[in-house]
């Protein structure tokens, strides 16, 4: 078997493992980790009706992982009657963010302009974060739908980060770092994050230093958060497939190493 054939076999195996486990349609109640509990408690303990910025700092390609995370965050924040300001610091996050906010707001009977608003995309994320520290309405003269932000009820008493209780960054890359460096360091706004699993190790030091208040990550984090909220969702539904896929990959690593050492022994 050549390397291309073995690669195809590995992919086919993963495809079968994921498909079969998903067809079983079993939701697993994920054990809640300390990190996820910390994020839940942090958002849960914010005073009711706080103004919170939800920043969609991800691209469409990471949607399968970011959507369940975004949904649990928005559901929790809407359930607590917080006032949400949606922004996107990556262009592709714009459409995704608006749609997610709109769908979730419907579930909780929230009204656009009064309970939530989506300001859209602003390029040059560092400039955007710094500019919002001076004036949110100045940075976004119009919202995503073209309404003048000066006429939006939710924003009537919101000028800059002084009027914002927290920022929740939904990130698949390093954008949360910029929120920490410019939003938190310069203006003192509290930052928390829901990130792709690949970014968890990058942001971990910021939790220890307190620059990041709390963090939840990956599909597993979404499943744990669904558990805390007492709702079902794609996170819990995908956990059996996720665990099976991980076991399959561990098996491949063991087989790969065994074959390698055996061939080295043979010379």
């Amino acid at each position: 078997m050549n390397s291309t054939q073995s690669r195809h076999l590995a992919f086919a195996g993963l495809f079968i493992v994921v498909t079969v486990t998903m067809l079983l349609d079993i939701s697993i109640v994920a054990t809640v980790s300390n990190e996820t509990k910390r994020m839940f408690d942090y958002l849960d303990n914010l005073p009711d009706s706080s103004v919170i910025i939800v920043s969609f700092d991800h691209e469409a390609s990471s949607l399968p992982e970011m959507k369940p995370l975004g949904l649990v965050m928005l559901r929790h924040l809407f359930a607590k009657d917080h006032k949400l300001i949606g922004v996107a610091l990556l262009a592709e996050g714009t459409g995704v963010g608006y749609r997610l906010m709109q769908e979730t707001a419907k579930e909780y009977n929230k009204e656009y302009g009064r309970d939530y608003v989506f300001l859209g995309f602003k390029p040059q994320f560092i400039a955007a974060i710094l500019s919002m520290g001076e004036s949110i309405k100045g940075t976004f003269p119009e919202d995503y739908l073209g309404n003048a932000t000066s006429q939006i009820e939710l924003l009537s008493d919101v000028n800059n980060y002084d009027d914002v209780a927290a920022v929740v960054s939904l990130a698949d890359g390093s954008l949360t770092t910029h929120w920490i460096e410019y939003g938190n360091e310069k203006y003192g706004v509290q930052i928390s994050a829901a990130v792709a699993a690949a970014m968890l190790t990058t942001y971990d030091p910021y939790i220890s230093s307190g620059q990041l208040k709390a963090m939840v990550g990956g599909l597993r984090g979404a499943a744990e958060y669904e558990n805390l909220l007492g709702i079902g969702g794609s996170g819990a539904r995908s956990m059996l497939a996720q665990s099976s896929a991980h076991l399959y990959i561990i098996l491949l690593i063991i087989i790969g190493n065994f074959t390698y050492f055996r061939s080295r022994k043979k010379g």
Partner: protein
Amino acid sequence: MDPGTIVAGILTIAILSFLYGDNPVYKMAETLLVGVSMGYVLVITWTNTLMAVLFKPLFLESQFWLVIPFIFGLFMFGRFHKSTSFLSRYSMAVLIGSGAGVAIPAMLGARTLRQMTATVEMVQGDSFLTIFSGLVVVVGLFSTLSYFYFSREHEGIMGRSAKVGTYFLMIFFGTTFGYTVMSRVSTFIGRMDFLLSDFLHLTN
């Protein structure tokens, strides 16, 4: 089933066909992705940036000072011709100068000073476990730094410290790799979830 789901389902299968090998169906889906992404970003940039931040305020609200960044923006296009390429240097100078001025104090504060403070604070924890964790962090910090110190031969204490540093680095790379695998598997599961539930209606 709405047309969007059908298109998304077919394109997902087209992209997954790469697992078998490079083929025209995959190429078509990949090209479509690049084209649509570029088109989307262009439209968003035009409406949210050029129109909202530059053209509308400049021409409709008479904010004439915006002529200055507009001209600097136009200078960037000077790169397309040899005789005018020098103009883009002025724009780049402004970008780099202001960018560095903004970034250096913020990064120094957030990434270096606050992290150094946190490292020391952990050692001063109130429980045995916190102090032990803090010590591990301190040992990890100094040993990893010694691995990247190239002004002295990695021999003796320096060599042993650098060796310990490589173990910390390997643990970090291993953890990051594990999380990255988890992330990619999640993406695949997300698409399979869409295919099996929304597109094929095989699961709820």
